[in-house]
């Protein structure tokens, strides 16, 4: 179920293609461009956590729109990584409420422990650190998001260690969480 990354032609995995087909039913037929953001999320998950120009071209082709219509959108929204990233992208909230509960210290500690600087990747390729704005979890600050998971109340060394250990233990593969989507046909769930 891996997406194809042959040198000549990129392709979404069969599960990804099925999910795209389902998404397109959500919008009027002449408004399929609406599916752009959801499809960019799929693309980023399938092709190594970032969207290269080639991947964005594939998205444009899928939606039958001009590549520029994808570029101008992917560069506007902060979730889309336009450069290669490490195995795990740690998105550290830096906004007021998290700052009040120690996000500056958390960032400094994560830089020290992982060896990565904010905006960069650790030498072992495991962790990319990214500072982001408010993640809407202010009551559980400080907070880090890694893909689809929120790690909250990271104000003790134990909590930070637990997060990093959990991530180190994960074997990296494209996360195809839509495989678990309840609205997918059963045949796709067991792959």
């Amino acid at each position, binding site marked *: 179920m891996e997406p194809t990354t042959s040198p000549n032609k990129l392709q979404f995995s069969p599960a990804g293609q099925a999910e795209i087909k389902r998404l397109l039913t*959500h919008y*009027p037929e002449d*408004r399929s*461009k*609406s*599916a*752009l*953001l*959801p499809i*960019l*999320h799929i693309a980023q998950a399938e092709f190594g956590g970032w969207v290269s120009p080639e991947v964005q071209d594939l998205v444009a082709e899928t*939606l039958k729109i001009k590549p520029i*219509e994808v570029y*101008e*959108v*992917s560069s*506007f*929204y*902060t*979730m*889309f990584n336009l450069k290669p990233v490490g195995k795990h992208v740690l*998105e550290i909230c*830096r*906004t*007021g*409420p998290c*700052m*009040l*509960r120690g996000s500056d210290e958390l960032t400094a500690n994560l830089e020290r422990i992982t060896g990565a600087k904010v905006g960069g990747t650790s030498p072992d390729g495991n962790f990319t650190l990214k500072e*982001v*704005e*408010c*993640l*809407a*979890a*202010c*009551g*559980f*600050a400080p907070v880090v*998001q890694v893909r*689809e*998971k*929120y790690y909250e109340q990271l104000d003790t060394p134990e909590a930070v260690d637990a997060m990093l250990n959990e991530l180190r233990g994960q074997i990296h593969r494209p996360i195809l*969480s839509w495989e*678990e*989507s*309840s*609205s997918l046909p059963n045949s796709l769930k067991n792959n």
Partner: protein
Amino acid sequence: MGRKLLTEHINVEGINTFDVYRKHGGYRSVEKALKTMTPDEVTEEVKKSGLRGRGGAGFPAGMKWGFLAKPEGVPRYLVCNADESEPGTFKDRQLMTKLPHLLIEGMITGSYALGARTSYIYIRGELLYVLRILEKAIAEAYAAGFLGENILGSGYSLDLHVHPGGGAYICGEETALLESLEGKRGNPRNKPPFPAVQGLYARPTVVNNVETIAAVPVIVNEGGDEYAKIGIGKSTGTKLISACGHLNKPGIYEIELGLPVEEFIYSDEYCGGIWKGRDLKAVVAGGSSVPILPKELILKTAAGENRLMTYESLSDGGFVTGTMLGSGGFIAMDETTCIVKNTWNFSRFYHHESCGQCSPCREGTGWMEKVLHRLEHGHGSMHDIDLLVSVAKQIEGNTICPLGEAAAWPVAAAVRHFRHEFEWHVTNPKEATAPGAAYRGAAVLA
């Protein structure tokens, strides 16, 4: 103990599933509306309830519904704004995670009232895991016959979809949200035309916050008049308050509007006071966009009356001595907080999140961030303090959308109430920039 209209069953085991939710009275409003009420009667109840938009603006929801154009043969839409990203606000995430069916029920009843046949929940992209929860719940609702063709044999049909954003605060602004839902950059639109006339795909559209839509079932079940009995004056019903910052018990609290601010902060039923036995210094009461108030003015109005958690009481005194209820993002700061640093942090946020369309916002938020950075790091001058106020003034009212005001108000208010602290950063830079330093002098109250 206040009534809990939205969250009464939030901690019931399995309440996120259709069966358990239904057992606790879920989807009754859909049955009542579709079987016994006309769409206009549903809208009338929402009008009577006095429910006001819970996303921040506080505009009467029923009136907004009443504005929806209904040209013959043109589809219209209800879009739920689940792009929760106002710093300090985290209520919608909790509500959707724990009570997905409450939002879905509100969407069905609301869509029926507005005559929408397709509706969308636009959720911020960071909450993809919540999107999965909602999609699962929607699939259950379809299976139970509450979504899809001919719901409960009423002849009314509705499709409901969840749509993720991609990380952009500006998409919480309703026209930016609609642009984003159309697959474009989140640039707010010029108004008029308003979404009620030309919204999604240039068709009539209502955009409502998650919490607003979640209040519709109880209003339909109990009647608008009953709902309006809770609260004070034009602040009716209950509100979810996201409490964060230096509190003993941060979290989400559903309060009856009218609760005294002091009780909310200090009572054990709510936030349980300020952490580490410290004193309260300031509060941002309604999300980062609203004016900050020093302790004295958040607990009591300038006239010495107890400040209440209502739209009116919090804005008593205008922006000179008051603030706003906003989204209910309640950020408390203890006596060790540096107001200059906090203001700089918020300015950086607005600069980062400005879509860049309007020069006053694009450039002005950058200037404010730079000047505040200078002051915070001990390189500022007295002139910089006035410069901040001047830039804030020039942004305000000169932009397409309210992000300009949202960026300007917190800066203007911080300088108004904590001017001495800004000056202290200029006169005592070494002291002010020492790690953990915070000015302990008195705030300016009027």
